[in-house]
């Protein structure tokens, strides 16, 4: 079978798996976020923790819960990183430096999982499992909760700005979905070869008489939630290219499936929550087509192998594993950057110039196709509001979305949301490339050097976490800058999303009229796709032209 045909068929297989699971999971998610009753063990948990799971929170209160929870998460993880050497299972690791502990704490609490460190050289097992992996669960839960609050805001009218209960959203999604799903996925991964033990490195005498340190760790349990929660932080430095994290082409497909399934299912859940499945279908169609386009482009780029080094080698195999080859690496790269995952099974810095460009653009789209767990849905819905607004301007009608008027106040909130990420990215790159301490980290000069810095800041600001890892970022400068990008890139949008949800939930319903733009038809799907691409295009074309585009043409 030709490599191209196999590449197409592997995508078809993945799409088929997603098509089977997404509707079921979507319905289940909608149930989690709307069912009024709690399970018995959940009620016991709420009593023990003294939180009220039944208060229908005003959006401000909901936002305080999100921020308060994330604040203690950052502090807890920071302290964990500073004292890990005194804890059990430290396997000889020392304390993280203050700037590194800050960066890692923010990174995992914001669902980014940017890693300045090398897992096997810096993090003990207890910090991995009880620090970092815990945030893999709960930061994913936070994203899903905020998306659920936004969907409920859109589903409600005259509700006084109330959008639901953060604690019950968080607890339900962790206990009823992420934990059981991770448990099953972890055991499947072990069966395929992922390690799961509590040992440190152990020496074996190799075939030629040398010694090789075989590393251990609770890897499978972390690998599972790392993909399911679109987190992406590798147990080891090599992330999902490490044979102990991703041993076979089958585990590779499973991991790609896991990182895509909840983001797509959330679009379905959205349709159920707003009681009009066609709305969820339209959002999913936009997500799916943009994802497919990026998969196609990246696969083409890697299989074609243009560029000086790939041409000289005969194929773009630098930074790729033999068992995956170009196509399975491209599929992973497109999917990990189109979601907010950021795990990698190939080194993105060594992707071909157009391939690396697609990965960057995927992140700069705001990771909405399909995006991170929860974050992808609310990001896409923000763009849907922009689309409705633009369409309203074109025909001179008051724009409305799902029975909600998009007035001046609403569009100001949306505009702030849309502007946050580009400001962080462009200002961040500018700072990184003017400060000597920033420039010092670049591995390469010229357009590829710019791409390295752009990739890092885009990855941090969009909470992705993958890297052009040639950039040496484990310095106080980059750790601080990227930490700020991650923090602001996560919580400024979340507060704006919740504010809009609250406004929608406070409005009276606008009846559907002759001037209402139907938001479930193919026309809207095309408009929304166009807005998604154009909003990015206009903002980032200059920097993309100087980076990946210039490199592709050189």
């Amino acid at each position, binding site marked *: 079978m030709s490599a191209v045909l196999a590449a197409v068929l592997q995508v078809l297989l993945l799409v088929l798996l997603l098509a089977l699971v997404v509707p079921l999971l979507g319905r289940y998610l909608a149930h989690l976020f709307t069912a009024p009753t709690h399970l018995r063990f959940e009620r016991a948990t709420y009593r023990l923790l003294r939180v009220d799971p039944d208060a229908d929170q005003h959006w401000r209160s909901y936002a305080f819960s999100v921020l308060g929870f994330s604040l203690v998460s950052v502090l807890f993880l920071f302290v964990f990183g500073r004292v890990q050497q005194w804890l059990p299972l430290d396997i000889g690791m020392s304390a993280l430096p203050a700037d590194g502990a800050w960066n890692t704490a923010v990174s995992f609490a914001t669902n980014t999982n940017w890693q300045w460190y090398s897992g096997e050289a810096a993090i003990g097992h207890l910090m991995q499992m009880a620090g970092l992996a815990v945030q893999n669960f709960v930061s994913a839960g936070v994203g899903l909760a905020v998306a659920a609050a936004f969907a409920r805001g859109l589903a409600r009218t005259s509700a006084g700005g109330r959008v639901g209960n953060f604690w019950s959203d968080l607890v339900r999604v962790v206990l009823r979905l992420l934990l059981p799903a991770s448990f099953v996925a972890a055991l499947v991964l072990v069966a395929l070869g992922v390690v799961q033990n509590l040992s440190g490195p152990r020496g074996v005498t190799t075939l030629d008489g040398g010694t090789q340190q075989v590393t251990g760790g609770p890897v499978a349990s972390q690998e599972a939630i790392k993909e399911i929660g679109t987190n992406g932080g590798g147990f080891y430095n090599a992330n999902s290219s490490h044979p102990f994290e991703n041993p076979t082409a*089958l585990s590779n497909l499973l991991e790609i499936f896991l990182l895509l399934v909840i983001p797509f299912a959330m679009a379905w859940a959205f349709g159920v929550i707003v009681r009009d499945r066609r709305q969820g279908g339209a959002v999913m169609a936009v997500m799916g087509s943009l994802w497919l386009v990026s998969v196609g482009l990246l696969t083409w780029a890697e299989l074609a192998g243009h560029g000086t080094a790939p041409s000289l080698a005969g194929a773009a195999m630098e930074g790729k594993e*033999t068992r995956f080859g170009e196509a399975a690496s491209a599929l992973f790269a497109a999917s990990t950057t189109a979601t907010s995952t950021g795990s990698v099974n190939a080194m993105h810095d060594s992707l071909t110039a157009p391939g690396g460009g697609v990965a960057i653009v995927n992140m700069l789209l705001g990771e909405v196709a399909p995006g991170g767990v929860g974050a992808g849905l609310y990001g896409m819905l923000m763009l849907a509001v922009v689309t409705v607004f633009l369409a309203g301007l074109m025909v001179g009608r008051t724009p409305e979305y799902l029975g909600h008027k998009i007035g001046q106040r609403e569009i100001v909130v949306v505009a702030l949301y849309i502007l946050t990420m580009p400001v962080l990215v462009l200002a961040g790159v500018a700072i990184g490339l003017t400060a000597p301490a920033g420039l010092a980290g670049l591995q390469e000069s010229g357009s590829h050097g710019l791409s390295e810095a752009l990739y890092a800041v885009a990855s941090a600001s969009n909470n992705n976490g993958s890297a052009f890892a040639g950039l040496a970022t484990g310095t106080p400068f980059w750790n601080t800058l990227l930490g700020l990008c991650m923090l602001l890139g996560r919580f400024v949008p979340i507060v704006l999303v919740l504010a809009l949800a609250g406004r929608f939930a406070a409005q009276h319903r606008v009846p559907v009229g002759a001037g209402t733009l139907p938001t479930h038809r193919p026309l809207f799907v095309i408009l929304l796709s166009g807005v998604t691409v154009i909003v990015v295009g206009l903002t980032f074309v200059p920097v993309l032209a100087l980076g990946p585009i210039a490199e592709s043409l050189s």
Partner: protein
Amino acid sequence: MTELFALLRHSLAGLRVLLAATVVCGIAYPLAVTGIAQGVLPWRAEGSLVTAAGAHTTDPGAAVGSVLLGQRSSDAGFFVPRPSAAGDDGYDPLSTSGSNLGPESSELVADIRARRAEVAEREGVRPDQVPADAVTASASGLDPDISPAYAALQVPRVARAAGLPTAQVAALVTEHTDGRSLGVLGSGHVNVLLLNLAVREAAGG
């Protein structure tokens, strides 16, 4: 002021929830997975180690390596794995990494040229016969596999050094070649450690 107080109140609730999550997701969950994995799939959970005879083991002291991890092999009677950027000498699991060199990197171009010349000389072939995986470093630096083409290239040299008929070594390569999973996933590959163990066995230890 009221905002600060509200944030504090929500943070305290958040702390209680976080501590509970740490116990459930951070301790109970990984330990449960570890317990089951160790009970049901101990060989996999311990890193897929093999002995010199090719038998599965969970004892690092008895193992020559993990079938999932590539390792350096300098002996002429063995198949050579891909270039590795993991650690100074390559294949160091304590320093996993690719080279991270970009497609236009002059350093990478020089590396590829040097590797191509080296492999061509070692195997006694023309430089243009050397496949891509032989001149490029993998993503992890621990790639356990090489392409079937790179394995085929090494057959004459290994057969000579091991004192085996070329056809027999070629047959061992075929035996250890895996195609794409399910016919479409990933890429064809040959596990270097298992192949080398088979060569050694065929050569009489």
